[in-house]
């Protein structure tokens, strides 16, 4: 950080929150991709997980995430 330069409030917290969202999505997709042809249950669960995470992100209720 520069002298006297202050980051915007919650920069770090939101950055970490986003990393968590992204990692959870990527993990769900990676878990399901190898089973696309042989295990519909794993795939359906991963898609459901992705929907849940993305619903939260698209809702954009930032103040809730900061609690």
């Amino acid at each position, binding site marked *: 950080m520069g002298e*006297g330069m202050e980051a915007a409030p919650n920069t770090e917290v939101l950055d970490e929150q*986003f990393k968590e969202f992204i990692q959870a*999505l*990527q993990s769900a*997709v990676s878990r399901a991709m190898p089973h*696309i042809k042989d295990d519909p249950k794993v795939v359906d669960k991963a898609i459901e997980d992705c929907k849940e995470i993305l619903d939260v992100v*698209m809702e954009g209720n930032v103040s809730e995430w900061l609690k």
Partner: protein
Amino acid sequence: MFNDKIELKDFEKTDPEYQELLRRVLAIQADCEIGGPNLYVKDILPNAPRKVDQLIVARTAAEEMDHYRKMARLAGDMGVDVSYVLSRSNQERYVEAFRGTITTWEDFSVFGFLIDRVGRFQLEEFIGASYQPLARVVEDPQVIREEEGHIDFGTNCTAECAAKGGEAKERIQKSVDYWYTKGLDMFGKSQSYRSERYRYWGLKRRTNAEAREQYTREVNALIEKMGLQIPDPNKGRLYT
């Protein structure tokens, strides 16, 4: 021309115009990155044709979210909070192309083919930028590689729809007609004072007109190769 290389610690010492342009471009970039998923996640994630497509939609959204995160971090470190773009409605987006919703697979495909391609052009503008933290983000091959992945997927899906012929081809042509106009407009006005100032301060490389011309050449060749009609580049345009 401004040839200095600026780090975060130097930012406050830079010219106010430089600061204003940088804050502005980061806010717009962050808005566009999160604006994409806001267009398509709601309807396309549950309704993509195959399960593998649903997973690709989710992965695409995750990668765009990561691009948002990187831009928001750059802005946040400079004291600019861009988190307001997370909760705004699509109608409030800075860029017109992100103000609607995507409800069909054809539109999702062409969005990747044409609009993510504009996104790649815009990210490439920052390669070698005077603001080093921004240059480092886009020079990390991951960001451009991910964007290219979205473009390739969209291009392949568009070509597949076109190759089916009949109604499928008509539907994809309609989507190309719609997004082609939006894509060309995303480069802004050809005679733009602000665009010149971005170049003066080393924050962008090409004029709006140059970038649009290169983009047009690239996409026209692909549209023709798919056996589709190149839309009228002047029809429905907001910025020329």
